């Protein structure tokens, strides 16, 4: 069974078909990249996978279960989480607190228990703090744990979003342009981080414009053009696919 199966996926905005007839599958424990010229529908695809947009047609199955109409928080519960193209870090908290929100699914105390500060709550807080600290360490962010997120530089915030998503212990991580705005050093560190995430057992779907990053770490690449699947295969195959080259160069 494939981890993620997308069948006949379609999204219309009014008369415009943003995604049409999309079919693909993602196996476990790989880095699966989605590339394509601007406007090809990559972020739309992510928004469809996480049900921020409702598909106009088709189905999405995760671990064999239909998730097409599940609300985003239930999709997260099933083990899918994501980072965002426009950073959605919680700027009103510290870095550690941001990541602790990531542990939401692995804790359970409710509002009343919290108000009364029951012993179970205290125990859980300790556990969550430790989980969050580990996620920060994995991303090499342990030094800024107590800094307010609003005071952190852009590159750090991008990594923080990843740490937060990891704290949720997902099976599938969707990363929307994680390299955008990063310099060369930061991009290399990101490359390293993504590989380590995959090695730890998490499947990654990556949307990226940075071709060298994509070709370096991906196991499988899918090319979108005008919302349709243009080609898919190994990085080598894609790099030598004439249609793909035409789609990118044709942009000029």
């Amino acid at each position, binding site marked *: 069974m494939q981890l993620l199966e997308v069948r006949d996926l379609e999204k219309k905005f009014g008369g415009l078909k943003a995604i049409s007839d999309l079919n693909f599958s993602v196996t476990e424990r790989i880095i699966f990249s989605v590339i394509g010229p601007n406007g090809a529908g990559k972020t739309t695809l992510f928004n469809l996978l*996480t049900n*921020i947009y409702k598909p106009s047609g088709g189905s999405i199955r995760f671990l064999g279960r239909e998730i097409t109409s599940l*609300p*985003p*928080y239930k*999709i*997260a*519960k099933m083990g899918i*989480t*994501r980072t*965002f193209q426009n950073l*959605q*870090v*919680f*700027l*009103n*908290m510290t870095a550690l*607190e941001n990541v*602790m*929100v*990531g542990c*939401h*699914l692995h*804790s*359970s*105390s*409710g*509002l009343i228990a*919290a*108000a*009364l*500060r029951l012993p179970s*709550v205290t125990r*859980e*807080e300790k556990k*969550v703090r430790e989980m969050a600290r580990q996620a920060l360490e994995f991303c090499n962010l342990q030094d800024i744990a107590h800094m307010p997120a609003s005071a952190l530089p852009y590159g750090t915030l991008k990594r923080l*979003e990843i740490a*937060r*998503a990891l704290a*949720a212990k997902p099976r599938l991580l969707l990363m929307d342009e994680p390299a955008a705005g990063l310099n060369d050093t930061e991009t290399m560190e990101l490359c390293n981080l993504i590989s380590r995430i995959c090695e730890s057992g998490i499947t990654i779907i990556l949307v990226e414009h940075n071709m060298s990053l994509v070709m370096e770490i991906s196991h499988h690449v899918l090319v979108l053009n005008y919302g349709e699947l243009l080609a898919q295969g190994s990085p080598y195959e894609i790099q030598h696919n004439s249609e793909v080259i035409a789609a990118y160069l044709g942009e000029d």
Partner: protein
Amino acid sequence: MKAMVGYCLFALSTIVPAILFPDNYYVTVVGVTICTNIVLAVSLNLLMGYAGQISLGHAAFFGLGAYSSAVLTVKYGIEPWIAMIAGAFMVAVISYILSRPILKLKGHYLAMATLGLGIIVHIFFVQADQLTGGPDGMSGLPVLTIFGIPIDNDIKWYWTFAIFMLLSVLFSLNIARSRSGRALAAVHGSEIAAQMLGVDTAKVKSHIFVFSAVLACITGSLFAHQQDFVSPESFGFFFSIELVTMVVLGGLGSTYGAVVGAIILSLLPELLIVFEDFEVLIFGAILMTIMIFLPQGLFVAMEQAFHNFMNRREQGAANATS
């Protein structure tokens, strides 16, 4: 542990004056007003400050608590504490039903919806005079007994309100540093990111809406018995705005900020009485000035200034020794 010390100091500052000056007007009467406003501000802050949901109608829940106690005890002869619980239950149900559609709204639309709600409830208090006594209000509430102790003099009322207030503040502080508090703040920070981390944002918003409404409702019931009088005037649009002012004055999202804001705004009328007719003008001016120049609120601004000062001192010491 700094937090524990802070809270204990705060609790002491509430308890000590009552022990030392049990007959003082400022302690018993003004103190009760301050405690009332603190609970209302703290409950509103949970909704507005942590969860980021504007409410311009919070006075409605306060009023519903007061009127349900008044009506049930005076018109139907029900035991005061049972009436209080019944009122709280009714408000819990109403606020829950309303919470789902209302909290789908954001920004101005949410402000307007809560405003509309508050005004409708207020008009109901005025118009349903068979039930509520209309604009002239109702009085003659029976004495409230808590755990068998009748609350029948000023100092007992102060203790009741003080304990209730200290519990509410404690609850709010506890919620802030818990999974629920973080979920609330996450909803405020980025609802979409919160959802992608498994937070059922609709449920979280709804629960805090109900929690804050019930807290205001219970405060209203206590208020009704303590004043032995309820009238629509106390529960209108202007009071809702006053409550919002308290929260933002101290600092949205900070429990102690709400406390500070409540204290300042409770004492302000006493100070402004000197200025008589200028009172409304000055209130408006203060509100505007703080929001323009210190939008994070007075308490939070003070906290920030303190942190900056401490950081600079550390830097200075580090530089001196290097």
